[in-house]
């Protein structure tokens, strides 16, 4: 006798019979351990405000050796930030269309986040090294579990393409990935610090170029060389041939950055370049692959990387799509009918063939948009210029994580946009002098204010206007003689 509620089965069966939805053998009936009514806790956490990941916090323990206070301070920060962010991710799944939420891949990711939230929020405030170590262990485990979120998510979103609008899909994935970057940055930083602290105690060696997960003397040239070598091997293995590459520019420069991020971005971009070159060579039947040129440049607090290939470029029509999720130029050539089942199958076989060596070389459709999000997270940027019929130039700019306040990270501030008459604006400016709520004064008719103060302002405005504006009736009342 099945323990699942009858109504659930009745719901799911017709969906299971729809071939467009199930990727046959991989469908497992998901058994949600949470009922609809256990959500209070998650909502309580999710309703708290989060601050952007502060670079100051990341670089706080630059001066070695790390002390116990440092570690406890770091764990306090993690404890404060992580459950809230995880809760927000969980909530974001609640807002997806029901049909999307029942997709097994999406459901799996949802459960992973929920489990991470459960495990981490349950710790009492930490004040000693022993419980801190337990927390670190739990954190490390959860980080590993959540490492595979992207491929599952990608597959799930692909299968649900027809149930979500493009904007909805893009917004959901952008939020998730941005938040995921933040989660991992905080989590990995703490885990790294924790290990560094314990290693120091044992070995008394101080490697002052690392601050947790941040390498302050990262050599972009060496990193690009390593990534290019790796991708070249992948390409050779997958296609049987691979173009050569060369590096030039300011090869000796260093920056302060998180190596795993840099590596991820570099690999994605190089994968595109290598694949395009090989494909184009076959297409126009040329005798050899033109080499890929990688140029490193250093500006003021920036490192610039330009990757030039002669892979035929991206057609104007496709330029719009390359930063879309779940769109891949590989996919569009194989799958013209748009049937998601077929695409799911072929992608799966594709992915399966490419397991084991640094992930798939292409086809997921997440590489460029994610690389861009990663690049932008600490204030950098990613631009792609296509010369159709010739090749592509990719311009990557990464800002050094220096902790100096002259280079603030891009902050998203939520507020309310107000349009008003100039005289009302004057009144608002006057009120602002007493209690600050104006985030930005845009021009004579527009203001940007803190959302929380909206009702306060409205009541104040009413009061002000009452006192200065006369009722018409009062004027018209005949004066008593």
């Amino acid at each position, binding site marked *: 006798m099945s323990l699942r509620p009858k109504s659930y089965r009745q719901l799911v069966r017709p969906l299971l019979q729809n071939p467009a939805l199930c990727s046959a053998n991989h469908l497992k009936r998901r058994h949600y351990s949470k009922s609809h009514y256990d959500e209070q806790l998650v909502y309580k956490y999710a309703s708290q405000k989060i601050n952007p990941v502060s670079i100051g916090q990341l670089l706080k323990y630059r001066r070695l050796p790390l002390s116990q206070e440092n570690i406890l301070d770091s764990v306090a920060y993690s404890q404060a930030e992580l459950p809230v962010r995880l809760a927000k991710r969980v909530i974001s799944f609640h807002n997806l269309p029901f049909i999307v939420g029942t997709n097994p891949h999406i459901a799996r990711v949802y459960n992973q986040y929920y489990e991470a939230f459960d495990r981490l929020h349950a710790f009492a405030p930490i004040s000693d090294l022993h419980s801190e170590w337990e927390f670190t262990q739990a954190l490390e485990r959860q980080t590993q579990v959540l490492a595979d979120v992207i491929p599952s998510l990608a597959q799930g979103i692909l299968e649900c393409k027809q149930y979500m609008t493009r904007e909805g899909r893009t917004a959901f994935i952008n939020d998730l990935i941005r938040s995921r970057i933040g989660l991992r940055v905080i989590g990995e930083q703490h885990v790294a610090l924790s290990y560094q602290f314990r290693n120091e105690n044992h070995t008394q060696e101080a490697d002052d170029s690392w601050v947790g997960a941040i390498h302050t003397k990262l050599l972009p040239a060496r990193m690009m060389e390593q990534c290019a070598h790796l991708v070249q091997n992948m390409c050779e293995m997958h296609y049987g041939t691979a173009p050569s590459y060369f590096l030039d*520019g*300011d090869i000796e420069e260093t920056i302060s950055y998180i190596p795993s991020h840099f590596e991820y971005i570099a690999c994605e971009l190089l994968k595109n370049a290598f694949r395009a070159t090989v494909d184009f060579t076959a297409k126009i039947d040329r005798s050899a692959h033109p080499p890929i040129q990688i*140029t490193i*440049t*250093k*500006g*003021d607090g*920036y490192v*610039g990387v*330009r990757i030039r290939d002669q892979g035929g*470029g991206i*057609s*104007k029509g496709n330029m719009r799509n390359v930063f879309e999720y779940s769109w891949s130029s590989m996919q569009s050539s194989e799958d013209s009918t748009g049937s998601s089942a077929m695409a799911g199958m072929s992608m799966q076989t594709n992915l399966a063939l490419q397991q084991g060596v640094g992930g798939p070389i292409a086809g997921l459709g997440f590489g460029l948009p994610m690389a861009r999000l990663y690049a932008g997270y600490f204030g950098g940027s990613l*631009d792609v*210029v296509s*010369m*159709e*019929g*010739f*090749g592509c*130039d990719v*311009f990557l*700019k990464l800002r050094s994580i220096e902790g100096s306040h002259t280079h603030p990270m891009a902050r998203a501030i939520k507020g309310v946009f107000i349009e008003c008459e100039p005289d009302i604006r004057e009144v608002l400016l006057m009120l602002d002098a007493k209690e600050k709520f104006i985030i930005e004064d845009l021009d004579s008719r527009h203001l940007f204010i803190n959302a929380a103060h909206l009702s306060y302002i409205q009541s104040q405005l009413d009061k002000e206007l009452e006192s200065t504006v006369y009722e018409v009736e009062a004027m018209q009342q005949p004066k008593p003689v």
Partner: protein
Amino acid sequence: MLRHAPGVFFAQISLTGRRRLASSVAGTAAKYESQKLKTTTRAATITTTSASANTVAHARTVSAQSGRNLQQKFYENRILDRYTAQEPKKITLRQLVLFGRQLTEDKLVASANYVRSELPVRLAHRISDFQFLPYIAGTNPHLKMVYDLYWRAFDEFRKFAPVKTLDDNRRFCDNVKRNLLEHSQVIPQLGMGVSECADLVAPDEIDRFMNQMLISRISRRTLAEQHIALSEQFDQDLRAHLGLSSAEGFAQMASAPRGFATQRIGIVRADCSVAQVVNDCALHASGLYEESHHLPPGTAPQVIVEGHTDATFMCIPAHFSYIIHELLKNAMSHVMARYATRLDSDASALAGIKSAFGSEPLFPPIRVTICSSHNDIVVRVSDQGGGINPGILPYIWSFTHPLKAKRLHNFHAVNRMEARVDESDSVSPLMSFGFGLPMSNIYAKYWGGSVSVHSLPGYGVDAYVQLPRLGNVVENISARRAQVDSHES
């Protein structure tokens, strides 16, 4: 000897300082027309300067009078409304080419009437743009002068009788030429006016205003110049068959094989070779810099052309040359500035000799890559000039910015130059007006292309020009701004 379709602005450049005026943005238009009107270049300069001296003086008195009439004009604006109600009839390059390939008298007359009716409509839209500027900006004397110029041109063209014969056409062409000359001061005037109003009007609005003004100006001049070129070509052909009666003359013209000439229709060239244009612009730009820095020839940064070097496309060579020339100038000036120490006279003299004998060049070369696809041409100009200063980077496409305002004052020097017949001190060709990039962008946008710039800090700049190849894109001009009471969210 440089061979170009008529109208390429630098074809007549020689190496005296006075002529260098032509290569600066402001003088471009003046020289460009003067090429059409003259026999020798020397005469052209003098003609231009004296003509514009007169027109400038004339315009100044006129504007003083019209100040009184301004309020009177308010009620006359209804005439404008009739024209702004019409949309401009946009054309493509292909249409221009197909039209001009087999000219007959009827076609020429039709072309004249098209130009005659289009110019007032397009002028009307731009006059309307002026009228929506903030009052304080409109009263600026420079902007006011352009406004009056436009009004006069508008009046003149709308009152011109329909063209019916070749003689009518010749008169019409003379009229148009005179106007083109008179309006050659528009860019410096706009530049000065805009720089003076930088504090009074939001920069976005100024940029939008300038963009619309300049694109429309290019479109009007293109139509006008194309028609004039076609008329002249027709007249030439006609004269070549003098002695025959008109019917025979036409018959012979129709049957005469055109060969190479059919690729050059008026100011349009159907098979413009990208590599050739780039090489010519490179030669000219190097000459500019070598002369002004007193360097031996061959020392300026070398320009290497790669990629699809045999690519051709349909374009107006004058426009394309302008863009490439600006980009190459920028690249060269940055490279030479970055490696300025190498300009030390002894070193450079030595290097000049060395490079003449083929050893290591003084500066890292500028690489130009040409890519031709089915629909587009992309030209990438890549230099190692150190990149663009991050402080200026957000504003390189803007016509107004505090950093640029200083440069826009340079226009004052230019205007004075044009007015004086005896020019004792010459304007350096390298004087920057801050207009090069935005103007290039406008030339590109006009036919549906674009110019974009990517800066690699500390290393160099990659600039990309993308233009449609087949000439089947419609002009990118817009009607006047929507009226204030139509709610745009």
